[in-house]
């Protein structure tokens, strides 16, 4: 058990008033050195479950995180809160920077890095020399979601743990079905792991699905709703361009709304600016891709719109989970027009090489190899084969897995190659079918006649709490009756004199600003 005095001290440090559901239970077990799998709903403060112990442990806490932008955001936020002994190592650092950070690891308590970096011997060798108190896998569902296809290093974390002398493990996720949980446990080779699984249903969110006939109708419906409400809102899109276009559209149609767009193609400073302005209430609406949200902690988001629907229910749950963290009435609105499934379908097909192409791909690879069977650099091979990044990584992983390639050299054996190609084709089939099934699930949910709440949570848990406000559009919700807290419409434009004075918290200059 955590001692009371430590708790009160840390409460101050992390600026929290108390633990949320699940946090204390997980932290207790982590402090006892147990292996823990924690599945906590979005917005329940998962990161505290390792940041808190990390500040007490004498050794290092390693956090494996899937996205560089996410790591950078978390490091920035931790530093802002006064936790300074933290660093993010990634493959975009200059080699000399990384080498010097690696040599001075003992300066840090918390180290974020990508699973790919953990495959480098020099990194492992350096980390091994330090005492590791805790090994964390954040967003652990990535093991299952991406590990099988193009981030195989997620599947090798078990081996990494062995090399690091098996430190205690904490795997965290917001959305993990039983299937995914088992995948995580077997990849980490920790069958005895202690599970803390918490229900993810949100009793203050009302679910709304609006089926319209066209893209234009989506826009006008959005226009109509945003005309009525000035509330903090997120609008999710599957394309960066659409997010930008819609932000411009809303700005033009509804000038009183303060809108911005956000996607992974923007530079870090611009991303932070938008995030911070949204958190400070300088912006009301963000048109974004799925890149927005992880690490965002805004309490009063009243509306989350899905202009396009995501590839699976797990992503949907993560995204709507950002609404209404303050417990007040909030709405998840999904807009559907016929044909909306075309884009996600083609995403699924483009993620992996087409199965009819596999054979010719391998023929081309064979031709590229030199006499001593050496291949040109991977980036060149992938470019010559006209594959995208993910497809290229998939191909390389498969060549490695089937022993067709060893380092840069092809290991060529005709009969064996034929068989491997067969297996790869079959694997592509399986993965595509799996992802289509996921897509089908969300498609079916959109078209369900019964209670949307019940249908949504069915695959994840046995029951759900009674909704605090209206349940869903199939149970009688209409926007006419929704009256959320609104933001004051303040359309007076301050002069720069007044803005400067306000911003600089200047006092006693009343006469000058006239």
């Amino acid at each position, binding site marked *: 058990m955590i001692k009371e005095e430590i708790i009160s001290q840390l409460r101050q440090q992390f600026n929290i008033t108390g633990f949320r559901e699940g946090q204390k239970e997980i932290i207790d077990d982590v402090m006892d050195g147990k292996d823990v799998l924690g599945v906590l709903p979005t917005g329940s403060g998962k990161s505290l479950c390792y940041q808190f112990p990390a500040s007490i442990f004498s050794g290092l806490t390693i956090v494996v995180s899937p996205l560089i932008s996410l790591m950078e955001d978390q490091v920035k*936020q931790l530093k802002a809160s006064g936790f300074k002994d933290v660093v993010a190592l990634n493959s975009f650092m200059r080699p000399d920077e990384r080498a010097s950070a690696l040599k001075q690891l003992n300066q840090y308590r918390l180290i974020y890095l990508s699973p790919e970096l953990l495959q480098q011997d020099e990194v492992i060798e350096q980390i091994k020399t330090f005492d590791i108190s805790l090994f964390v896998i954040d967003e652990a569902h990535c093991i299952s979601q991406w590990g099988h296809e193009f981030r195989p290093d997620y599947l090798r974390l078990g081996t990494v743990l062995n090399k690091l002398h098996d430190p205690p493990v904490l795997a965290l996720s917001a959305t993990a079905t039983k299937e995914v949980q088992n995948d995580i446990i077997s990849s980490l080779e920790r069958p005895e792991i202690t599970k803390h699984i918490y229900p993810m249903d949100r009793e203050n969110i009302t679910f709304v699905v609006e089926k319209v006939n066209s893209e234009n109708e989506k826009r006008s419906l959005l226009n109509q709703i945003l005309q009525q409400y000035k509330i903090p809102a997120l609008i999710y899109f599957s394309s960066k361009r659409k997010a930008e276009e819609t932000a411009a559209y809303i700005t033009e149609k509804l000038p009183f709304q303060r809108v911005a767009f956000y996607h992974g193609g923007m530079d870090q400073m611009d991303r932070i*600016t938008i995030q911070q302005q949204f958190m400070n209430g300088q912006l009301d609406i963000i048109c974004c891709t799925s890149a927005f949200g992880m690490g965002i902690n805004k309490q009063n988001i009243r509306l989350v719109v899905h202009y396009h629907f995501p590839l699976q229910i797990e992503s949907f749950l993560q995204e709507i989970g950002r609404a209404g963290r303050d417990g007040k009435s909030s709405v998840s609105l999904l807009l559907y027009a016929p044909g909306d499934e075309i884009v996600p379908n083609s995403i699924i097909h483009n993620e992996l090489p087409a199965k009819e192409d596999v054979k010719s791909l391998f023929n081309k690879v064979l031709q590229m190899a030199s006499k001593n069977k050496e291949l040109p650099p991977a980036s060149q091979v992938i470019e010559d084969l006209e594959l995208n990044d993910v497809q290229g990584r998939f191909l390389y992983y498969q060549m490695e897995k089937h022993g067709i390639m060893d380092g840069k050299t092809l290991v060529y054996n005709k009969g064996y190659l034929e068989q491997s190609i067969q297996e790869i084709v079959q694997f592509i089939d399986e993965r595509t079918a799996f992802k289509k099934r996921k897509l089908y699930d969300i498609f079916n949910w959109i078209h369900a006649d019964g209670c949307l709440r019940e249908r949504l949570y069915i695959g994840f848990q046995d029951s759900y709490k009674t909704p605090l406000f209206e349940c869903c559009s199939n149970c009688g919700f209409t926007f006419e009756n929704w009256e959320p807290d609104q933001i004051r419409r303040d359309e007076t434009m301050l002069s*720069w004199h007044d803005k400067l004075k306000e*911003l600089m918290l200047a*006092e006693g200059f009343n006469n000058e600003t006239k």
Partner: protein
Amino acid sequence: MLFNYIILSCCTKFQEDRSTSAVFHLLKGKRSIQTVQDAHIYELNHFYGIYPTLSKHDFEVHVQQLIKNNDLALKGDNTAIVTRKGENWINQEAINVSGCYFHGMEYSRYAPVFWQRLLLMIQTMTNSKRHHFNFIPVIDKTEITDWVRKQYRLWKYDTSLFLNKLYSELFHLLNQFDTTEASIFVDSLTGYNHYGMSSFQIAERYGLEQVDVPLIRTSTIHRMLMLISQNEQHTPLLKHFLQDLTHEAKVTNSANKTKQFMAKGYSAENIASIRQLKLNTIYDHMVEIALYDKAFPLGHYVTPDIQAQIRAAIAAADSYKLKDIKQHVSASISYFQIRLVLATDKITW
């Protein structure tokens, strides 16, 4: 379109002597003799280094646009001349940009440091006044954060006094600008629970092209720096933002290390072997230092006799090209010596 105006103005001055990438280097403030000389010879000192964040891509896109639009015509060897249409446009536009003030050769080294210190200082002090210490700093460069941390220690018990003083100094300065310029400046600032606008947002609000926004800001800052230096007694606190500029603000980091060795009396050859760098790299550093250091000890490296020979050769060759000059001096004189003389002399041209 301030940016297009500046590109066309530069091309007009360069005529057909220089390629478009010379314009790019000029605006980026490249630390080479060639670029600094170009600025002097073609009377483009004011534009030197006014757009350090400019990307090659954005630059190319705008050059191509100007060509497509028939304002600029590309010549064979990548030089460009301004067309009659382009000239007319510049003349029309001259009134709109008359409010802009650039003095790149004088201020381009200090302007970004001044601006970033100001941004972070305002964010830090306003948050501190509200006892709010969990903010994400808008600037995370160590050379800036270190300076701000020092200032913060000096002022942390007088945040109100500091902010009031800074407010009235900024107010005094901004009052001398037109309303739009002052508003853009204020909208870019970050304070307590208030994050400044990005270039994109400024462009949207004021109906500008995004590529112009950093230029407008630079123009405002250059003018501020000029006003500060003219009336130091009105802006004592802002003047302070220009103090203890690190040497890095003037020369690159690596050149600065070379400078430290030079100060200890090491020769170029010694420095090269200690730092395990090529001799030519050390030469480049020395030329870079000579460009900015008015007290550069030219006599240590080039005797007065040889200096005279080189200057005579420059006159005889009627050119600043190294090859031309080299043909007019004795064979024992090196390119390095010619470059050093050119670099130290640039101020008098």
